[in-house]
């Protein structure tokens, strides 16, 4: 599959959060000796992903897998510990705020919690006008008004409500307003960090429809962070499954849902409660997700994998391009050496 020049590219992206800040915290007693030791949470490890224009790349994973950190790294809210982020061919992770300004208009973010993502002391009109004015100081007052009214109509918020404050709106309406705010600067790329998981089912559909509409009408490209696989299946064109800060499987949406390769993806898919299926046949994972502090050297999924063998613990599996899957077992499954019948035993 030949992809055009990617709009966004992550190369070997890493993010560590230092746990021990300051010199005194790094001093520890180990076996009678005082040693200096720094612990770090490895939130994102060596992630390389590309998003082509017009695509909707969904990043899925469970809590603590680093998916929100990826979103915040790309949005420039965090700086990567290593690796590079390129947008439209230009490197963006090491730029100053001023140098980022032209890109801010192109790249916007939608947040998870609509109750916290709007300033409670600003009316909707103020909240929507501010970015327009800031990025287009030359615009006249009436042009700014028109722009604001236009985005409000586009997200289905009556422009006559503009003088109200966020607390007068419901969660779904607030999320629409947050989307409207992102759209005021006419972006081409939107990072959406769990934009619907705080909303009710009937409202989720409304917001998801709105985002699909915006995609078609404005030609938006999305990076969509979520934990909800049914949303991925509906919204995404490509899916990256994250586990403990590493990509364990990357595939086109249809391919991933029809034929998941990585044992973790399979377990994840089988765990989604299905509406019409009376007899769930879910693959139980043993144990719990290990802590991302001082990660093991090998495959991060090794401790919970039903197919783990001696080569998994010491070696981190290299990405396998033909299948776009990362586990060595995926390759072996393909060759037919493994029967595609996972063990469904309980906690071992």
């Amino acid at each position: 599959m030949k992809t055009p020049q990617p709009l966004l590219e992550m190369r070997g992206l890493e993010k560590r959060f230092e746990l021990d800040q300051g010199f005194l915290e790094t001093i520890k007693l180990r076996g009678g000796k005082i040693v200096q030791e720094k612990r770090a949470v490895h939130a994102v490890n060596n992630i390389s992903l590309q998003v082509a224009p017009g695509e909707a790349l969904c990043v899925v994973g469970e809590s603590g897998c680093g998916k929100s950190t990826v979103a915040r790294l790309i949005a420039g809210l965090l700086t990567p510990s290593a690796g590079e982020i390129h947008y439209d061919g230009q490197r963006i992770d090491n730029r100053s705020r001023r140098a980022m300004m032209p890109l801010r208009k192109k790249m916007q973010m939608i947040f998870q919690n609509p109750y916290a993502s709007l300033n409670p002391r600003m009316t909707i009109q103020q909240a929507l006008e501010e970015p327009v004015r800031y990025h287009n100081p030359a615009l006249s007052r009436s042009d700014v008004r028109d722009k604001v009214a236009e985005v409000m109509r586009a997200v289905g918020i009556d422009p006559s409500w503009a003088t109200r404050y966020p607390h007068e709106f419901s969660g779904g309406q607030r999320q629409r307003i947050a989307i409207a705010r992102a759209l005021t600067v006419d972006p081409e790329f939107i990072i959406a960090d769990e934009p619907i998981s705080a909303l009710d089912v009937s409202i989720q559909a409304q917001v998801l429809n709105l985002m699909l509409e915006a995609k078609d009408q404005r030609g938006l490209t999305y990076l969509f962070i979520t934990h909800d696989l049914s949303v991925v299946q509906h919204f995404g064109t490509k899916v990256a499954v994250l586990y403990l800060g590493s990509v364990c499987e990357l595939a086109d949406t249809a391919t991933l849902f029809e034929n998941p390769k990585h044992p973790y993806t399979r377990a994840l898919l089988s765990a989604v409660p299905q509406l019409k299926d009376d007899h769930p046949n879910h693959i139980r994972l043993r144990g719990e997700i290990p802590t991302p502090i001082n990660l093991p050297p090998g495959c991060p999924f090794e401790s919970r994998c039903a197919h783990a063998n001696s080569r998994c613990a010491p070696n981190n599996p290299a990405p396998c391009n033909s299948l776009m899957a990362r586990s060595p077992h995926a390759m072996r499954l393909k060759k037919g050496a493994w029967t595609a019948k996972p063990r469904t035993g309980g906690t071992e």
Partner: protein
Amino acid sequence: MAYSFRRNPVAIVSLTVFALIAVLSFCAPLIAPFDPYDPGQIDIMNSEYPPLWVNGADAQFMLGTDDQGRDLWSTILYGTRLSLLIGICAVALQAFLGISIGLIAGYVGGRIDSLLMRLADIQLSFSTLMVAIIFLAVTQAMFGSETFNQYAVYFLIAVIGVAEWPQYARTVRATVLAEKKKEYVDSARVLGFGPGRIMVRHILPNSLTPIFVISTVQVANAIISEASLSFLGLGMPPSQPSLGSLISSGFDYIFSGSWRITAIPGIVLVVLVLVINLLGDWLRDALNPKLYKG
């Protein structure tokens, strides 16, 4: 707010009393029968008249006169005006310093935060009065008491203002740290807004509630500080008496029958500080949504 106000008789009484004192004192030049700053209106022969309801009073002087023959009623009006003015201006200075420092420390974080907050700790480890006494004593000695008396108001505002900024800085920093984590701040950063704009337009309006509450308490504290300093002779000179210097000037006569010269301004001071504190209490309850919603 209005609802909780109407339901709270203490708040209603406090606000009425405070408004009365404030209006009377700020209209002092209009309603006071005498001008205590004008030596021409003072006659030493009128000194130590008792108030109207005591035998031997002079009908001219409603609350009697002090040891220099000044009308006590007029002097209290002017003195209260001066006390309130110093209190409010000193708090404005405190708030300006404290809010700026607190915002920067909380928002920028890291080394700057540590540096500013250690400064605040050092400042707080000296009591306000001690700092003020040292500063005022040194300036008085440096400039001589003539010049000092001329600019005493500004010195008092400056010293009380500077001595208490850490109260604001700490409170503001704590709320900024809480607000900074909220997504609307991230959203503003993603829109490319600069740190100044985010601090002033987005974080500050959401940190105002605790600022209002401590401001009321701080005004009361500043009035007390001013009164204490004036009482110790380091504040307003006897020629321009504030409530503190009035109490102080009457203090010498407390056992010689003219205790009213001290007691009446003392009562005014206590009432003033009490109602401000009560208003502060009410404001804190009213602005705290957890107590308010019920």
